């Protein structure tokens, strides 16, 4: 059970981010919610690769024979972090533009496209 604790934390983080996106009214808080969801996903990928007692997945000059953690999820996570960075930067720039155009950061009032 204690070995499953990281997965439960991932679930809790994902739900927290999802609730933030669905119920918050301020645009910046919604962007923070998306960022929390992306962090939960990245943590999920890294925790997948963990093997008990494992060491760094280095091939040459590795100290002793032992179990190594998997390196592939680390590569997947790096890619996902880069993508999350690009979308966070774009989201914040769009929030700046939205504030200039609408004068408010409340998502209930930014609804000119309707119906």
């Amino acid at each position, binding site marked *: 059970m204690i070995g499953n604790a990281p997965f439960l934390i991932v679930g809790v983080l994902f739900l927290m981010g999802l609730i933030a996106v669905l119920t918050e009214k301020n645009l910046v808080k919604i962007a923070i919610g998306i960022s929390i969801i992306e962090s939960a996903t990245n943590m999920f990928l890294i925790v997948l690769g963990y093997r008990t007692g494992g060491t760094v997945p280095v091939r*040459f*000059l590795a100290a002793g024979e032992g179990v190594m953690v998997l390196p592939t999820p680390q590569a997947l996570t*790096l890619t996902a972090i*880069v993508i999350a960075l690009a979308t966070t*930067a774009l989201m*914040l*720039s769009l929030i*700046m*533009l939205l504030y*200039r*155009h609408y004068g408010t950061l409340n998502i209930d009032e930014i609804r000119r496209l309707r119906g």
Partner: protein
Amino acid sequence: MKPLSVVVRTGCDLFAWFMVIFGAYVIIHGDVTPGGGFQGGAVVATFLAFLLVAYGWNTLKLWLQESVYNAMLGFGLLCFLVLGFMGMPASFFYNFVAIPAAEVAKSGHGIIPPSGTIALMDIAVGIEVTGGLSLILVYMFKGIHLFDNYEIGEESGHDR
């Protein structure tokens, strides 16, 4: 933006160029230590963040040339793609520089085999990410005060 106090400016002076060197270290040693192209590029981009916070925009805009960062961005991307094309007769992105580990052990020249195009692509991506993230910083900062002096006008293409 006004420059901060002497303490902050001195701290920035001490560490700003060190950030560039540390970032270059992370980029170049990407195939043997944790790090690589994107991570090192992000570290190098904090150079501009340091200067922006410590010295303020009015001083920085006299020194900054955006064309350098645009050129780094384009150059890094093109290098990456050209390295991909250079492995072409075998396959796209083929590692045409690498030497397998068995031959390296035989030659007695070292333990870690050269990673070939991985290191070159790391450097290309590092240059590109530096340019890209620095530009993002500069543009997002400029966007804060972009519309202070005039209304957001329409681009001419929206009219007839």
